[in-house]
């Protein structure tokens, strides 16, 4: 289980220090937890703190009771934390098969690559030898990014807005990917999302706004409140009602 205790994060900006997260404490004690809230509220920063990309200004992170606050990105990855970037990184020369092999920690067969890629709606034959470079569209890169996390199969998988840049047809497949992960996962899936359909398949929902934890609880307790009020999270309410986010 992943646990955050009193996490705060302050970033250096041109106008001095800016507080991004303020005293967040959370236990990710369920299988599927969605983090939502308005843009700029600190969600992505929190995900990067979990992955070790950012170091919190104060507070502690525990994985299965072990303090991992001081561990590097690599050490956290090896202990079982995976992270899917909101904006996937491109590599010249590294192929889709190379990247999935690196993710799974071994050279994978075409059949195995096919398994992961088909789960994210890509035909392996068309993609395994493609370079993960600018010849791929944003949506294709996004799906490959998710496939790398599937290939790792770790106990904690963090997805930063997996739906961003994915078309409607793919979005249906994406929901299935997470439903299937939810059924088979041995740990926790943590997804940052604005999408009601993703929030709907979560066990618990976290609401973060203005760097603070506004709500955390069972989906059935949190969602109705989110939909009925625009004071906590106006942007989210808009997106849930189908308006432009």
């Amino acid at each position, binding site marked *: 289980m992943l646990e955050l205790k009193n996490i705060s994060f302050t970033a250096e900006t041109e106008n001095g220090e800016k507080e991004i997260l303020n005293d967040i404490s959370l236990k990710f004690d369920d299988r599927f937890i969605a983090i939502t809230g308005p843009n700029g509220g600190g969600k992505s920063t929190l995900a990067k703190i979990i*992955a070790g*990309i950012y170091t919190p200004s104060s507070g502690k992170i525990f994985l299965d009771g072990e303090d991992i606050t001081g561990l*590097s*990105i*690599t050490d956290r*990855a*090896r202990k079982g*934390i*995976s*992270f899917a*970037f909101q904006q*996937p*990184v491109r*590599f*010249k*020369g*590294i*192929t889709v098969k*190379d990247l999935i092999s*690196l*993710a799974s*920690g071994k050279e994978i067969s075409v059949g195995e690559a096919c398994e992961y890629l088909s789960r994210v709606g890509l035909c392996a034959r068309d993609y395994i030898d493609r370079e993960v470079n600018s010849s791929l569209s944003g949506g294709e890169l996004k799906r490959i990014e998710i496939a*790398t996390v599937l290939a*790792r199969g770790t106990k904690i998988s963090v997805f930063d807005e997996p739906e961003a840049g994915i078309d409607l047809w793919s979005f249906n497949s994406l929901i299935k990917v997470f439903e299937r992960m939810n059924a088979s996962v041995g740990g926790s899936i943590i997804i940052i999302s604005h999408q009601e359909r993703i929030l709907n398949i979560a066990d618990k929902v976290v609401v973060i706004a203005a760097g603070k934890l506004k709500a955390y609880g069972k989906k059935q307790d949190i969602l109705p409140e989110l939909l009925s009020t625009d004071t906590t999270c106006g942007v989210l309410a808009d997106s849930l009602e189908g308006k432009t986010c």
Partner: protein
Amino acid sequence: MLNDTDKQLLKIIADMDAIPTGAYNIRANGALENRNTTANIDIRTKEDKPGIDIIIRPGTKNETVHIPVIIDKTGLSDTVYNDFIIGENADVTIMAGCGIHNCGSEESRHDGIHTFFVGKNAKVKYIERHYGEGDGTGERVMNPTTIVNIADGGYMEMETTQIKGIDSTKRTTTASLSDGATLVIKEKIMTHGTQTAETDFTVDLNGAESGANVISRSVAKDNSYQCFKSNINGNNKCSGHTECDAIIMDDAKVSAIPEICANHIDASLIHEAAIGKIAGEQLTKLMTLGLDEKQAEEEIINGFLK
């Protein structure tokens, strides 16, 4: 007889585990070691200067010629002139390469001057690998010159790779293309230590509908220095593209000087050049997959130069 060092060099530069089938010419320490010709591919020793003529009959299909050069003597300076005459409508692969093992204190050097005459509608893939090793203080130097002439409708693809161990290299390639001819050059270079590598490509697109694509990818580490020059001259209705993409590390220095000259209204030419260090987000992504920073760096470089 080839010793174990020679065999190892041959494996690295020419993928040769054993004596290849088909035509080959193995040159070791400045002298002919072994040769084989076939019904379609003749190899003759030049009489006026060191080197060989490789003559490929018109219409020869799917044959490969190996012409590796290996040097394991310190202080040896070897210059060869090799001419390749590729007959009309042939479709062949030529694997050249030079490996130097220098354990001594004197410079070991190989200068290969290769001239290609690619016949009408012929297709040739030319693969050239340069490699150096040995713990001596003597420098390992290679200065290859490649001169390419492609007749109407001919096609040549040149893959030139220098991955390790060459202290100093100056590589010069010039090409002249006739109507409908195509030239593709893929260069890969990695330098480290205090090595220097200079490459200079000049391509004259003389024929109508001729085309050239010159792509260089390189990694410069430590205190090494690289300079990439390319000049594509569009002298007819043609298309040309040159691209230099370099990763710079440590205290290395890289210059890229791409030049395109359009001398005809229907010449369409593009150049691109980019030099930069490995992007931090690339390292971060691979580290989230469990690689440490050094492993991530190696994967990025290996992929880049693949």
